[in-house]
């Protein structure tokens, strides 16, 4: 399946992906209206390593997702390879945050969990972090599945 991968050699650390993510999942049509004057809670996080190398981390859509197994509300599931949260079922226990080994499930600012769903569940249908990355550092493509 197509997943998001990062090419850290091209990541500029501009953090646009975080803003594009926050906007894409805001449900709004205007970025200013969606984000101005607000703290953002993106589902993708730009990290910086000790050498100043930056890269964005988002859900890996693991082949054996511990978050799905751990969800106490049955709100997380894998559909066609995409791990999704059923927000109507999520009660905000944050167990998924506690178990995700990559720190890719995060709290959304209102107390419940959120994670990258490859923009399949919002109005975009294609990952906006990838689309908006000015330097091709985030790609959405097919790579070899793990054994």
């Amino acid at each position: 399946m197509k997943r998001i991968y990062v090419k850290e050699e091209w990541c500029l650390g501009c953090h646009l992906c975080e803003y594009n993510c926050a906007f894409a999942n805001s449900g709004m049509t205007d970025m200013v209206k969606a984000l101005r004057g607000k703290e953002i809670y993106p589902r993708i996080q730009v990290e910086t390593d000790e050498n100043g190398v930056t890269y964005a981390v988002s859900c890996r859509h693991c082949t054996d997702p511990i978050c799905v197994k751990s969800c106490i509300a049955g709100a997380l599931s894998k559909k066609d390879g995409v791990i999704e949260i059923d927000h109507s079922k999520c009660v905000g226990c944050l167990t998924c945050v506690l178990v995700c080994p990559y720190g890719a499930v995060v709290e959304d600012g209102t107390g419940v969990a959120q994670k990258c769903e490859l923009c399949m569940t919002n109005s975009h249908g294609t990952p906006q972090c990838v689309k908006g990355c000015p330097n091709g550092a985030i790609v959405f493509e097919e790579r070899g599945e793990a054994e």
Partner: protein
Amino acid sequence: MNFYPEFEVVRNDSRCIRCRVCERQCANEVHWFDADGKVMLSDESKCVNCQRCVTLCPTRALKIVKSDCRLRENANYSDQTIKEIYRQAETGGVLLSSMGNPNPLPVYWDKILINASQVTNPPIDPLREPMETRVFLGKKPDHITRNPDGSLDTTLSPQLSLSMPVMFSAMSYGSISYNAHASLARAATELGICYNTGEGGLHEDFYKYGKNTIVQVASGRFGVHKDYLEAGAAIEIKMGQGAKPGIGGHLPGTKAVGDVAKTRMIPEGSDAISPAPHHDIYSIEDLRQLVYSLKEATEYRLPVIVKVAAVHNIAAIASGIARSGADIIAIDGFRGGTGAAPTRIRDNVGIPIELALAAVDQRLRDEGIRNNVSIICGGSVRSAADVVKAIALGADACYIATAACLAMGCHLCRSCHTGKCNWGIATQRPDLVKRLNPDIGSQRLVNLMTAWRHEIKELMGGMGINSIESLRGNRLMLRGVGLTEKELQILGISHAGE
């Protein structure tokens, strides 16, 4: 003396979401975030109007505008002139500039119009019919020869085969970044054209693109060695450059870092100064010796290009080069770009490429030696239409560099000499170099050339021409507008309506 900044950063605070992308992306440190007031602030005096922040601002909250703070109006002493005097009075130094001459001198391309077929012969639809753009650059024999069995002897002196008559002009590794070179090399390879190393040597990673590489030998001889010469598809001797005819080059030590220094074969951090003349070429006969020593060194496998700036006596110079053994002449007009040049030279020396090209082509024909050499035309070829006009005036191919830089992201802020190119092109700062992803850069170059090729085909088809060779020197396809008799005569074209 302090001036009011040349540009103003206009931030629409009602649109700003404080994402701080502008701050992170400005190598000139124009923007910063004030945590106390939770606002973005800017120091406009540092702004070079490269538009990086404008381009990346996700909410279009930014624009850079020309400051309207002006000195008292004076048609003779313009603001620019006065400020340059101030600056020189302060520093005692030569003014430096980058990219091509920005002054409002005539652009002849824009005064030449292209023909199209109507009624008496048909235009050709490039979507339905083959439309050929392949060219071979190099010496053509005066006479064919036959083998003893009567068949044609098909051996030829070395030719540079191009899928379309446009190449990426010389820009050295050092003046531009590794990623810019990678983009050019990869695009040239994919397109079946050539890029040019400039006088910076060839990074070892790029030897694999050799078939699409022109290696340059310039007055500093930086990076020149046997493997380098043999690596390319052609060798270019750079005698001059349109942006700065009559002077050499200067790569500041700050740019001669790491692989740049290694590739140039100079100590790291040392200034790379190319002398004004080649110190082994003080006349045309010396050039002939260099041409042939390079041919000897590469066993006559590669065509040799001699690149000269378009200067007053260009026709005679070209005639001399055509008789020097060179296979190809590259003429670089006065609008050609550069990574750094003294402002006075860039803006005042040399002549327009259109006139130079026309004069050279006609002179070589008059002397019956046009077949001895191919002609490459460079120095501000901006579009497919310019290419078509250049070919019709007599060029075999064009060099583009500024347009290539634009394709890679350059916004023509003309600040290359500062080494802080925010677009990752004219810089060696690793964090900035990184901004040009060659996957994207090469693709954009390929896109640009593909688009131009389509346009060239459309224009050719309109003229009823289905192969580029029938366009070459076909000046009947051109007409001038608003040109004097003299200009028309030099261009060898009629006025529109004639």
